[in-house]
């Protein structure tokens, strides 16, 4: 019984200590974002790697999500209501939920893992210490560019995902279900609301921050060689994915009550 309680206690203490260190890390990263020097070359490189290079995986995800939504909806609705219900369902669910959440989960796997592995390897091979000795702050040189890229590129990726998702729904609706093409487009435009898109982009920015800060935090604090880097990578992806779903709920609640 005592063993059992002490195990719970130790876990809780560990969790609190990680949460505290993460909060300090995030605060430090943000404060470095607004204090010069900013390494613009690194920032643009991360824009490229986190934004542009994620386009294929985000595009594929969005396309098939939109397509499967249309296909599922065609079964659920009657022949009469389906042609107008499908575009409504696709545009609303893509912009509000599936665009930001699925794109972010894919990026968490692709980018979060890469960041944690890269920074983790740099930590265990003393490259981060070497930056310090060369009068370069590793927070500014490594962390700030990645966090900024997550914050700015994730909404951009989600915007692309929204468009491709609608296109996926359009293709299934028009060429497989043989519904009227122009009706689909008109219905889509009528049901496109700024608030839906905006809420999706805000979510994307928050998720982008979660992915990159957790990747950086886990990599930056990794210990103990190859195994430590592996653990950091796993933690970065798992924690980011869980936090994305967690924050998604509360952001949705926030936007719905307004």
């Amino acid at each position, binding site marked *: 019984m005592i063993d059992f309680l002490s195990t719970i206690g130790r876990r809780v203490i560990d969790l609190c200590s990680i949460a505290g260190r993460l909060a300090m890390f995030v605060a430090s990263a943000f404060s470095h974002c607004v204090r010069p020097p900013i390494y613009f070359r690194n920032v643009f490189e991360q824009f490229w790697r986190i934004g542009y290079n994620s386009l294929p995986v985000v595009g594929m995800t969005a396309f098939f999500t939109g397509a499967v939504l249309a296909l599922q909806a065609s079964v659920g609705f009657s022949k009469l209501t389906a042609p107008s219900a499908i575009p409504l369902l696709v545009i609303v669910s893509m912009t509000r939920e599936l665009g930001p959440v699925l794109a972010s989960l894919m990026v968490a796997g692709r980018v979060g893992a890469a960041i944690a592995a890269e920074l983790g390897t740099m930590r265990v091979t003393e490259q981060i210490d070497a930056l310090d000795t060369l*009068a370069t702050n590793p927070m500014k040189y490594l962390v700030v560019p990645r966090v900024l890229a997550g914050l700015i590129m994730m909404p951009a990726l989600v915007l692309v995902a929204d468009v491709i998702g609608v296109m996926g729904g359009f293709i299934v609706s028009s060429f497989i279900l043989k519904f009227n093409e122009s009706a689909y487009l008109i219905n889509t435009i009528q049901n496109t609301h700024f608030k839906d898109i905006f809420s999706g982009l805000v979510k994307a920015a928050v998720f982008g921050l979660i992915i990159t800060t957790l990747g950086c935090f886990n990599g930056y604090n990794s210990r103990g060689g190859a195994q430590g880097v592996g653990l950091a990578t796993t933690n970065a992806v798992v924690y980011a994915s869980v936090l994305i779903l967690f924050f998604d709920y509360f952001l949705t609640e926030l936007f719905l009550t307004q």
Partner: protein
Amino acid sequence: MSTEAAKISVRGLKKSFGPKVVLDGLDVEVAQGESLVIIGASGSGKSVFLKCLLGIIRADAGSILVDGEDMTGGDRTTRERVRREMGMLFQGSALFDSLTVWENVAFALNEGVGRRRVARVRSREIALEKLASVGLGPEVADLSPAELSGGMQKRVALARAIAPSPEILLFDEPTTGLDPIMADTINDLIVSSVQKLGATAISITHDMASARKIATRIAMLYQGKIIWDGSAAEVENSGNPYVDQFVHGRSEGPIKMQVRAR
């Protein structure tokens, strides 16, 4: 020697990781232009001492004065300014694998804060000069560090450490993992570059051949304290049983090996 003359003065330095005491009141002074080699068994706290000196690890107690300025204080700008006068050769070279060899060497010139930035063309010229001074030709400049052998990586790392002409050079086990010939080459390069810069050097090693070659003074670290300190010549006949055991590499003696790294 008097305190005023000391380039680096360490007093009562203490550092523990949890219950494990690593540095237990370490005192050492290094004069300008001196080359101090700290010897000690694995796990005696040598690496932790170097990292405290660099300000990467914060000591629990004690002071580190560099040119009379306190590195252990809370003032981050002082710490960063003092660190700018230091160059460090890491045990595993710690070259940035995302950059080419010459970009590594010129890193402090291109990216370092507080130094006057130099044009990219000029910084490449400087990098080539520094590479030449460690015996590497321009053909390696555009390679990636991963394409070089361990000894070549060490040379590049040395060139990177000396590129900003620091006043203090720190060497973390400079010959570990190298063959005896390459180790001797690195030792020669360390001696010549320290002399050329007129720098003050602190090295940590357990390689006695390297220590004899680099050092003007040798100190022995044991259980977080300096237990012996003398000139490079005196180390052979120190009369100290701990030093004797270490220098002559005997398994029998007063020193008990540490099992845990920290």
